């Protein structure tokens, strides 16, 4: 009986031979983007029967473990989709192919400089081709603004953080007269907010990460504390930010916005517009606000990339597919499907990225304010985010200590983590 069981199991296994195609691991999870990817792969395979691509869908939550074990055990895909902050770490460990020799002038000139900067090492090595960029915008409820005679910000006249606070206070209302505010001025997804804080601190002049004696360290000074002070002011002093903000992520804030609980949502990724377009109730009118201004209007960039592992045996063929996938037409399709910005300048000229509908014009213009964060390339950044930054920020929002105390703790604990990654440098 044992023999029968083993025999049938082996037969079943044997029927699934792995193919010799170019293995492309994608993190597309939205239906439209998955469809766009599949169409693109089908087009490529029809035109290139000798170097067909196999589309493999993975997930954001498991891709890191999948790739790390692949890199260590040779079971690598030929192309994988990921993001710039993480692939820098992989590149530092020697897992990725330098794509610089493959890139021709046309692609080099057409992809925006700030996107290239997010994937280029100090040595000039390029470990991923950027294709999607996330920008940070705000959302507002048009009906609430109209009822209160508030003119929304525009590309030409963006709001400052102070202006947002002023309007936020004005828009707090107890609509059902039960003594409790049920329409808040501001909602903000502050759960696991390290990414948000890093990217928005840039406009206050904050950097957090710097180099001392050739090594990365974290320093939290007045400019780094400025955004944290603003958030705590909105939350504790002015009370114009909904209290549940500290426990919700950007995604989780959107349903409340759609129900009219928040007049504005700030510090949100532009891709969240998709939720509103597809799921907002009938008659819900919303608009997009440009990034907020402090000393500047700059925010940090996070790009999504395609990379080729060093151990791939089909590097040239893999890059041929990347070149096809990232031509203007395909990149525009991928970007629209995911409600994000394409990295190519030629895509910005296309009508879908310049329409006023769904805030595309404002989102496209926000490219001008994107910049590379100084943490890019820092070894141990992922661990720092999860182990140091997010927990301390959560404790700060919960009122366990002051901003100054949080700053002190962030410095001490960050440098302990970073020193571990830079021991041999």
């Amino acid at each position, binding site marked *: *009986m*044992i023999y029968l*069981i*083993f025999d049938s*199991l*082996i037969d*079943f*296994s044997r029927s*699934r031979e*792995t*193919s010799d195609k170019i*293995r492309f691991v994608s*993190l597309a*999870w*939205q*239906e439209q983007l998955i469809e766009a990817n599949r169409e693109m792969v089908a087009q490529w395979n029809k035109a290139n029967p000798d170097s067909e691509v*196999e*589309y*493999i*869908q*993975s*997930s*954001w*939550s*498991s891709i890191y*473990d*999948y790739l790390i*074990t*692949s890199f*260590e*055990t*040779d*079971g690598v*895909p030929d192309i994988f989709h990921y993001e710039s902050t993480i692939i820098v770490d992989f590149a530092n460990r020697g897992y990725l192919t330098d794509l610089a020799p493959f890139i021709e002038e046309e692609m080099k000139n057409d992809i925006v400089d700030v996107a290239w900067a997010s994937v280029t090492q100090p040595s000039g090595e390029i470990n991923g081709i950027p294709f999607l960029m996330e920008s940070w915008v705000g959302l507002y409820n048009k009906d609430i603004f109209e009822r209160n005679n508030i003119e929304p910000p525009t590309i030409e006249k963006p709001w400052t953080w102070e202006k947002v606070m002023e309007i936020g206070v004005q828009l707090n209302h107890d609509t059902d007269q039960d003594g409790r505010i049920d329409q808040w001025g501001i909602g903000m997804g502050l759960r*696991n907010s390290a*990414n948000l804080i890093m990217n928005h601190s840039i406009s206050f002049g904050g950097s957090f990460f710097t180099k001392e004696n050739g090594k990365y360290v974290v320093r939290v000074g007045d400019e780094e504390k400025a955004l944290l002070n603003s958030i705590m002011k909105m939350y504790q002093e002015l009370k114009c930010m909904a209290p549940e903000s500290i426990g919700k*992520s*950007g*995604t*989780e804030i*959107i*349903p409340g916005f*759609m*129900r009219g609980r928040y007049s504005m949502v700030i510090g949100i*990724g532009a891709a969240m517009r998709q*939720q509103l377009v*597809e*799921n*907002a*109730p009938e008659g819900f009118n919303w608009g997009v606000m440009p990034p907020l201004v402090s000393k500047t209007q700059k925010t940090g960039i996070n790009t999504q990339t395609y990379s080729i592992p060093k151990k791939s045996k089909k590097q040239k063929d893999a890059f041929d597919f990347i070149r096809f996938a990232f031509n203007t037409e395909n990149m525009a399709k991928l970007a629209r499907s995911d409600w994000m910005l394409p990295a190519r300048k030629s895509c910005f000229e296309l009508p879908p990225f310049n329409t006023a509908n769904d805030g595309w014009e404002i989102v496209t213009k926000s490219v001008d304010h994107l910049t590379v964060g100084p943490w890019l390339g820092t070894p141990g950044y992922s661990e720092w985010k999860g182990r140091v930054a997010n927990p301390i920020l959560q404790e700060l929002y919960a009122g366990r200590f002051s901003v100054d105390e949080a700053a002190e703790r962030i410095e001490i604990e960050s440098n302990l983590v970073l020193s571990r990654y830079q021991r041999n440098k």
Partner: protein
Amino acid sequence: MQINNVQGMVLKGIKQIIMLILLIYLVFPFIWLVSISFKSTAEILTGGIHVIPKDFYFDHYRSILNDSNLIQSVFNSLVVSIFSMTITVMIALPAAYSLVRFKTNIKNAVLGWILASQIFPAILVIIPLYMVLRYLHLTDSIFGLTMVYVVWELPFVLWMLYGYIKNIPLELEEAAFIDGATKLQYVYRILFPVIMPAIGATAIFAFIISWNEFLFALVLMKNPENVTLPVQLSRFTGMEGQARIGLLAAASCLATIPSLILFTFIRKGFKSGLMTGSVKV
């Protein structure tokens, strides 16, 4: 007497209420999962807390059932779980019997190793395991994954069966031998029926371990056709905690059906088997 009756009734009432609260606590997440699976995404995000959907929405189930990858992954999980459960129990049963009945010098060391092997988390062994399997050409294969699950479940199943068989009186065995039964006849005609409840309980544990396992399946299976259900379900989630909630709920509901069917069949055996197998090393 009357006071005792009243006290008895009050106590019974309190017990019933506690059981009801516990039942709601345990079952409500599943009820909510089913409820979400029948709601449109718009209603899930903005519709408030209603168990009964305002409008029943079947498109999530239609999408799931049209997704051949998901159906394939359910089939893969079923194959892997059933085979690993069967092989594990077939190996663990005679092994447990041997450990109980045969006195050897290494018995305590073997029992100690069984316990010690439970300490290692999967993430610690995954890379060397992958290298061994690659050497044997067993990566990205259902057979390879099944063998990994057998090795992973065996200590736990063996430990449970060991405890159960230890409680079976030696006199039963001796009586069988006196009546002329061979060892094999004793095992199959007397021991096997007696420990059927334990086999049912351990089989279902083994099945659940394989059915829910994620990390080994994620790392070892690269071909999309070989992906198991937990890995396939993870693909409904995006960055920063975003998820296609309705689809995920529908897929999760469908994913529980095989476990529910299996549990229904083995339920009686599981109940009595659960109370036995307490270890006396």
